[in-house]
């Protein structure tokens, strides 16, 4: 297993995360409705808004998962935040980075993962909007675009922007 890497801007990233005052806070409908919609549109049993803290990932919103957090070293989201691009693992059991990861070999039985990094208003990548399946999957163009669009809504919520109609 390849432990989740530490980004070069880790100190600033963690500071940006702490400043949001989101860790260990109660559920928030703004994030929950995005997670529900992601699971529905992509037909995924698990969808999360995950915040990658120093030693753990903590779930601000979760659907289909009982755990509220996992250690960072085994987290897929820890890998996803290294780049701004969508991070997709189509079959974790065939991927040397994850094949012996406890999330793959254990009860969760994770096979498919897609995570879209989310940003603090400062631009630092603080976590992901991600979807998980227990069987290998591929994402089509529309599904990728949906996940990207929903990532944008999470970023807007993180920035405290209201639900507004786009100006004509």
């Amino acid at each position, binding site marked *: 297993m390849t432990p989740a890497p530490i980004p070069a801007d880790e100190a600033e990233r963690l500071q940006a995360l702490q400043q949001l005052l989101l860790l260990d806070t109660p559920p928030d409908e703004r994030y929950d409705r995005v997670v529900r919609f992601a699971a529905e*549109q992509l037909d995924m049993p698990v969808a999360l808004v995950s915040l990658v803290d120093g030693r753990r990932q903590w779930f601000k919103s979760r659907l289909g998962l009982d755990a509220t957090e996992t250690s960072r070293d085994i987290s897929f989201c820890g890998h996803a935040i290294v780049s701004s691009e969508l991070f997709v693992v189509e079959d974790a059991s065939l991927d040397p980075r994850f094949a012996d990861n406890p999330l793959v070999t254990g009860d969760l039985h994770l096979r498919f993962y897609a995570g879209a990094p989310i940003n603090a208003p400062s631009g630092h990548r603080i976590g992901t909007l991600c979807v998980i399946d227990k069987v290998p999957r591929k994402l089509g163009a529309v599904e990728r675009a949906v996940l990207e*669009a929903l990532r944008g809504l999470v970023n807007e919520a993180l920035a405290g922007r209201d639900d507004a*109609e786009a100006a*004509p």
Partner: protein
Amino acid sequence: MTGSAKPLPRVLLFEQHFVMRRTIVTVARDLGVAEIQEASTIDRARVLLATSAAFEAVVLDFDDGARTVDLLGELRHGKFNSRADAPVVVIAAELGRKEEDQLAALAVCEVLRKPFKIGDLLNVFVNGGVVPPVRL
């Protein structure tokens, strides 16, 4: 970039639910399917139809029932800038026989039942020739 790319077809979307509405708008734009103008209320949709340039297609949430039918009737009677025969897609959670007949009489080209996939809506545009062929 020279700015010579053909503009995307303009589509009006009335959908009350924020996440659904904004996601449709963003996905349609990012995939090069359509430039969607969004309305979160039927009143806002009416204003946009009355004041904006013509829309090539219209998508209407049926949650507002009779008022949606009224707006569609006005469109079909040529009261707006858009063509009276512009393709219309209705999205609805529930629909009775009476409503189905009303929508058929108003030449609705497709009714999508909620929950539906955004790809299904975009395919209605593509397959109906509202927008140029796009591989989705």
